[in-house]
């Protein structure tokens, strides 16, 4: 049976159709085809969130997963992020959790706070 969904790889948002043999149509680029395949086999998402900055009042610093992580782990990983707080200054790319829940993804800072 064919499955249909919207591609989230870029703002274009192509309407993808994938069949049981994993043939993808509707995509405008190869990344769309890859996305469709991963979406039917093991869907993943990038997570962006934030963590508290200890030495700044009412301030958060933004973070992300270095690579997309399994969709079903989103809320668990958010909980892992919530356990962490950092100290300013922060630098883009600083790893605050390595290989979170063995997903192979690191949690990295995405904002410079001086």
């Amino acid at each position, binding site marked *: 049976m064919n499955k249909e969904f919207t591609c989230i790889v870029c*703002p274009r948002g192509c309407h993808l159709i994938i069949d049981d043999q994993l043939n993808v149509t509707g995509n405008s680029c190869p990344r769309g085809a890859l996305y469709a395949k991963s979406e039917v086999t093991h869907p993943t998402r990038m997570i962006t*969130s934030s963590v508290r900055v200890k030495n700044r009042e009412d301030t*958060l610093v933004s973070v992300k997963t270095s690579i997309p992580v399994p969709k079903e782990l989103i809320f668990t990983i958010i909980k892992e992020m919530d356990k962490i707080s950092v100290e300013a200054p922060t630098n883009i790319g600083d790893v605050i959790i390595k290989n979170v829940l063995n997903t192979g993804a690191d949690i990295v800072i995405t904002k410079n706070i001086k």
Partner: protein
Amino acid sequence: MTDVDLLIIGGGSAGMAAAIEAFNHGVKNILIVEKDKQLGGILNQCIHNGFGLTEFKEELTGPEYLSRFENQVETLGIKYLLNTLVLDVSKEKVVTLSNKSGITLLKARAIIFAVGCYERNAGAIQLPGDRPSGIITAGTAQKYLNIHGYLAGKKIVILGSGDIGLIMARRMTLEGAKVLCVSEIMPYSNGLNRNIAQCLNDYNIPLYLSHTVSKVIGKSRVEKVILSKVDENRNIIPNTEMEFDCDTLILSVGLVPYNSLLENMGCLMSSTKGPCVNENMMTNIPGVFACGNCLHVHDVVDFVTDEGRNAGIGASKFLLETFNETNSLKISPKNGISYVIPQYLDKNCNEKVTFKFRVRQPIKNAYVVIKSGDKEILKIFKPVLIPSEMVMIKVDAEKLNDLTEDILITLEGKDE
């Protein structure tokens, strides 16, 4: 009074791109004035990813995207003032600044407005019902959450399916809030399809198209939001009410260029609520330029950056080449096109010009036609055009040479 060659109001994506580009084109005496405590503008609170696909061929978060420009500003040694607000700009381009060191008057030879936009709010849409706490615009809720770490709602209805609303639906869900639904008055979403997929569908948040808030109920805090279906004229259809018990109504009902300074200067304004500009992003006041979301609201920051660059180049031409601002042709939108940027084109234009426009409503299989009088400049087939997607069409310089009549941009049916 201190003199500055180029003063840029607003240190967000548009302002930084304009500054860097003007600097690279030979303007060295530049000052960026930013009201916030950091450069980058609203991108500082846009911590989600999806920025930079055009610009850097990768997906960055807002802060990562802005830092690349911030680094260039620092490296080039472009001066900037933070925590500083422009109180006034005179027609003579004398700029009054306020910050904690005092009030400063600066005489600028050229000014680029890159002040961004603000969110339409409850008053502007005449939101029916009570006015308790818990009615908040999506961007404000975003600032509370992503910058300060506070949730402005726990059980939420979102009005408007613009991208910020969709992004906030996901963001607040991830932080433990329950988003009950998103309501959109139009029969189509105003956000990107991928945001509907990854922000709503991923979290099973329903989207009600052709629905709007017919009443807000709540004395101190929002208690209930009533949604009703609307007809094709966007009028509420009686007896279609859906009641939602919630504590918060988030409004994502549009962005508006933030332009009171320009209006006070007597700048000619367009229907976008931004100023009218020519292909150099210059307004009708010589040496005054505008770019980014204070000119017209963009969908993607990469395009804001690009427009900022255009303004930077325009300003450098004005400052270094003694501009030959003579005769302009007017560019007007017609027949299903809601606006076009630029609104004016120099008759002696000898460069490629990008026409940017939006359609009034979704349309399939149409030709976009640009003409000057009876002369057809360009005709392009577009299978799908939707209002939430800004269309950009580049027109080569040779096609724009020797035009004598005003320019129209219009939609024509497939068979014409």
